[in-house]
């Protein structure tokens, strides 16, 4: 009896210890970035596990830099436009794919799935030519265009899954009343699709906000860059003297909004990810 209780206790302790390890592993790198960013530069190279003094010098330094503020603005503009375009094209396409049976539907679905698995490098030279041809090189608009390659297939795929789950009766009633497909989408489906659109929009936003390869390749000057590129290219006097304080401050700045979004919409994001992968 006593031994049994002991084993049970040991199991409980082991379980919570494991949980604690997972928590520390997940959170510590971000925590460490936050405390590094809040240190005065004189203490930067001393390893600390918590803060003794709080100093906003690094944040002041990055926010007085015009190019960084500009990069944040570019990132916001690009990400929001990408979400808007992906949802606009996605909702109409998902209606067609989810509610109408027609010849060639399976082919279109396969094409979408195939595009979502494209390696970005494979289209880099062709896309570079297209973007330069359209006069969008070194312009955030070029990024908005190129980001549809990974946001659009995903958005269409997930929205189609959601669209299929809506009851048929709604649409039948609309057809009986003589509603055109466009009216059916905007008046019947759109109000019901808001949760799904919020989820996919959020995921598209995160993907666009984080994108690096295209942003690095299709922009040239500091004032056209997005945040990931701006952070990656922050450099000091030499390769071995990176200004870690400002880099961490910039990193925390662009991550905090995302972490807050993820915390608030945790459930939605999980359902969106699993709808895109498990059901997809």
């Amino acid at each position: 009896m006593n031994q049994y209780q002991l084993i049970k206790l040991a199991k409980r302790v082991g379980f919570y210890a494991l949980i604690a390890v997972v928590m520390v592993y997940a959170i510590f790198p971000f925590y460490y970035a936050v405390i590094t960013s809040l240190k005065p530069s004189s203490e930067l190279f001393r390893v600390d596990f918590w803060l003794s003094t709080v100093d906003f010098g690094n944040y002041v330094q990055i926010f007085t830099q015009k190019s960084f503020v500009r990069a944040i603005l570019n990132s916001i503009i690009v990400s929001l436009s990408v979400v808007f375009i992906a949802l606009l094209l996605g909702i109409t396409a998902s209606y067609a794919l989810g509610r109408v049976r027609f010849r060639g539907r399976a082919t279109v679905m396969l094409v979408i799935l195939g595009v979502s698995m494209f390696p970005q490098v494979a289209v880099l030279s062709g896309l570079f030519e297209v973007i330069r041809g359209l006069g969008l090189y070194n312009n955030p608009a070029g990024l908005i265009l190129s980001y549809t390659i990974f946001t659009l297939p995903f958005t269409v795929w997930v929205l189609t899954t959601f669209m299929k789950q809506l009851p048929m009766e709604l649409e039948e009633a609309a057809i009986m009343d003589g509603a055109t497909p466009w009216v059916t989408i905007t008046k019947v489906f759109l109000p019901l699709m808001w949760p799904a659109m919020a989820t996919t929009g959020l995921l598209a936003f995160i993907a666009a906000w984080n994108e690096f390869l295209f942003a690095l390749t299709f922009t040239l000057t500091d004032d056209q860059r997005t945040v990931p590129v701006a952070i990656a290219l922050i450099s000091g006097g030499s390769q071995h003297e990176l200004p870690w304080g400002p880099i961490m401050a910039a990193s925390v700045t662009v991550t905090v909004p995302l972490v807050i979004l993820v915390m608030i919409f945790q459930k939605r994001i999980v359902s969106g990810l699993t709808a895109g992968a498990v059901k997809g």
Partner: protein
Amino acid sequence: MSTPATQSAPRAVRSPQAGYRGTKVRRQRVRAAWLFLLPMLVALALVAGWPLLRTFYFSFTDASLSDTASAAFIGVENYLVYDDGAWYGLLTDPVWWNSVWNTLYFSVVSVSLEVVFGIIVALLLNAEFKGRMLVRAAVLIPWAIPTIVSAKMWAWMLNDQFGIINHLLMAIGIIDSPIAWTASATYSMWAVIMVDVWKTIPFVALLVLAALQMLPKDCYEAAEVDGIHPVRVFFKVTLPLITPALLVAVIFRLLDALRVFDVIYVLTSNSTSTMTMSIYARQQLVEFQDVGYGSAASTLLFLIIALAVVIYLYLGRRQLGVDQ
């Protein structure tokens, strides 16, 4: 004729539409469907289809970045050419084959680790305990952090002189002198894998967790009544049941890993000991301005990934349900 993809929505398969097949309403619906698909198809053709064809074409030319228009057709010379008693071209370049090997090594090792740790985390999150939501939220944090930022954060923690990881390892006594994690040829690949694993465990864990939560409870009750050891239950019951979800997670991760670029670019730049196919191709394309040669590398990368996709589609037809 195709049927919708999900098992969870059998309702959408029903046949009321058959009632007005061939009627004016039905024709109007099909026409509207194509009209609605058109913008998306045009967009995909512009950013995916056409650029991909151009990349294929460039790989057979001597195009340079500053002037792609005047590219001349040179056959397969970018891939392989016999000149003056020796073979040249991408297929003979040891740096290319090194980057192919690096990519495969990185993909296999990091995806394996992610799957093992992802399952462990998912099993933990599937247990009932206080503060479970809080832990799940915490586990999501690495996923939410942009790859560039996580690479920079780890670069700082792995810094050879001032990094906390060397500090800790030396304090515990595992190492005597600091390790140059991102600069040394021996450790840099492990540093990259470590960062990638940290960042993507949440994704695998969430997919596995979703599968775990759909498992029938009665098997477990039966196993418990029969007094079967939980480890045995895991391997005999849980693992086979979550295998489909696991396969999906693995293929998604594998496709991502095969085209990995940003984490490696930020952590170790163009160092050959961690150079992957994407890094190699981009270096040729952008830094050396050799669009022809770089496109040849991109094309091979595309073919390797396409092969993986075809195998996946073949193995996973039932899961996907699109080509029934």
